């Protein structure tokens, strides 16, 4: 069964729709949304509704730090533009959409997989996996063969070498990678709704756990439309510019 993994959607309906469509064309039968459904973008309500529909059909959904911020939970201070988007998002959600976010778990464990937004080591601390040390901490805490996460907006696959240390690997989009069950893996699937590596294409990944294979993808989408909506909503200009430039 193919499992589509999407993270950091950030209220970007165009990117989310494009990734879902791409994943379905690739034969995805299950979906996991790895947090930060909202924040930054101009379509929080529509994005939550779409993901809630998938959740009803059995999709995994976990909470991200931007989702927590919208709910008013205590988190570290954000940049001014991120905070402005959080404040704006609060005014746009229905009670039902808010309740959906409020019910999301921080971490989901299923068989030999752990799904989390940031790190399995203290998920509510929202640590960034920026290197070997953080990857090691998350993999140790998860005690699972596979850890799937987001938060860092870049696609990276960590694997444990024989030396016992995690080694980062930058995946080539579209190339299937063998992810043997006898090793441990941590996959950062990249951001669907706000890529930051200079390429505006949306990120997601597809895992085929029976065949122990995983493929990272980049999907072209109408970022101009998403940026236009951000400007129309009166959100900070920088948030629109980022989508256009992938930064």
């Amino acid at each position, binding site marked *: 069964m193919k499992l589509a993994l999407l993270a950091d959607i950030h209220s970007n309906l165009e990117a989310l729709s494009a990734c879902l469509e791409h994943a379905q064309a690739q034969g995805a039968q299950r979906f996991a949304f790895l947090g930060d459904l909202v924040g930054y973008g101009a379509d929080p309500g529509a994005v939550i509704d779409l993901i809630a529909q998938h959740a009803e059909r059995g999709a995994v959904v976990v909470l991200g730090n931007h989702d927590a911020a919208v709910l008013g939970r205590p988190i570290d201070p954000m940049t001014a533009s991120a905070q402005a988007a959080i404040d704006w998002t609060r005014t746009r959600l229905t009670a039902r959409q808010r309740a959906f976010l409020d019910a999301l778990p921080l971490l989901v464990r299923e068989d030999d997989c752990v799904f989390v937004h940031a790190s399995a080591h203290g998920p509510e601390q929202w640590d960034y996996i920026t290197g070997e040390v953080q990857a090691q901490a998350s993999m140790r805490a998860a005690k699972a063969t596979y850890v799937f996460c987001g938060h860092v907006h870049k696609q990276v696959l960590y694997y444990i070498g024989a030396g016992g240390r995690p080694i980062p690997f930058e*995946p080539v989009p579209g190339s299937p*990678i*063998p992810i043997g069950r006898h090793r441990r893996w941590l996959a950062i699937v990249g951001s669907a709704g706000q890529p930051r590596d200079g390429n505006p294409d949306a990120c997601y990944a597809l895992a085929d756990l029976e065949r122990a294979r995983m493929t990272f993808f980049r999907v072209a989408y109408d970022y101009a439309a998403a940026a236009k909506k951000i400007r129309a909503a009166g959100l900070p200009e920088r948030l629109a510019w980022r989508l256009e430039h992938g930064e």
Partner: protein
Amino acid sequence: MANRPAGAPPREGDELDGFRLGPRIHLGGMAAIHRLVGPKGPLPLVIKIPRLGIGEPASNVISFEVERMVLGVLSGRQVPRLICTGDVETRPYLVMEYVEGPPLEDWAVRAPLPPHEVARLGAAVASSLYELHKQDVVHLDVKPANVLMRPDGTAVLIDFGLAHHSRFPDLLAEEFRMPVGNWPYMAPEQILGVRCDPRSDVYALGVILYELTTGRLPFGMPTSMRRLRQRLSRDPVPPRALVPDTPEWLQEVTLRCLEVQAANRYASAAQIAFDLSHHDQVVISERGRRLRGAGWAVRLRRWLWAAGYEPGPCPPASVQVNVAPIVLVAIATTHTDEAVFEALREATRRLIAAENQCRIACVTVTAPEPALGAERIEDAATSVHIRHLVQLRHWAKPLQLPEERLTFHVIESSAPAAALIEYAKANQVDQILIGAPPPRGLTPWRGSVASQVMAEASCSVTVVRPRAGTESPVE
């Protein structure tokens, strides 16, 4: 096999997931290889079983995993076909095609070999390496024992346990403190920890050429790190100093493969295959003529370079070899058309500007000499050949390209399109430039040449047409 202790070596007659083991054909430090006697199928098969268990190094299982991963995605006759694999955790094995043909080792023990035989074997290995590199794989353990020669002359590379595939995580990275690979054949950058440069395989091929030519290894069989690192600063004794009959072109090719800095080697294995197949076109530099290695000043400079060396990031192997394409320019010297010639030159100039390591092979096809011989002396085969060669050189002169990036070939054939297609295939040509037929199609054979080449060539074909108004007047 289940009734014997785990880790016990497999034996003839054992059965494994329905495969019945025949005689053992190889027992190495990492794995044992048996012929398979059952089940019967269309292809003769072997099974490779890694040596695991107490006392065996952990790297064996990783190498098994690497080989399974890499062979699983490789295609082509230059690698054994992988049929199926066993689970890494419970029953690791690889079932693959049994390759008919002796290892290159059988030739190495008879070295020194005649130059033309070294060239034939070397070109076969180079072509196979190029096919690997195009598929993003660097072998990193090229040595005569890992090359099998099929009866049709194709070199088959085996044992991918140390290979690097740029689209997969490198399971061997950082696993070993000692350099991984076979020391006598290992490239300088590989000694320093780089595992992703296709030019490391080019270096190993250089060692093989050296060995076949002289019967010796360029840096012996080092047993310590200090001895191993000698090749970072020293040059090998030139083959011509050991075997004086070694032609300069063979030494030129060999020593260029053995350059310390990867950037000074051939940029792609296809270019080596090309040079070894057309040795009359190899431009001889000081390298080909020298009778001794570099002096102390050069060695000191290299030593300082190696001491401060930091491996950089790895671009995919296919990207690295693509910067050094071989371009065939079809120049119809039998139908001189200055406008088409100039258009071809213009297109070639643009290519040279974009691809600063590309090679231009200027090719023309002439009609075969009549069977009963020519009546007039100027039509005799050699003088016809030379006349066309002169025209090719004349065509290329304005390009002002260094000699080593230009080659000239006059092919004799009554089927020009087929001859060009065959030539392109045999020489790993990446792109063909060919003139378009005249607009009103007054010379019908040429029209069919360009279109047939376009339809049937195995590489990209660019049809070049002079700008409107610049065509030569139709006579």
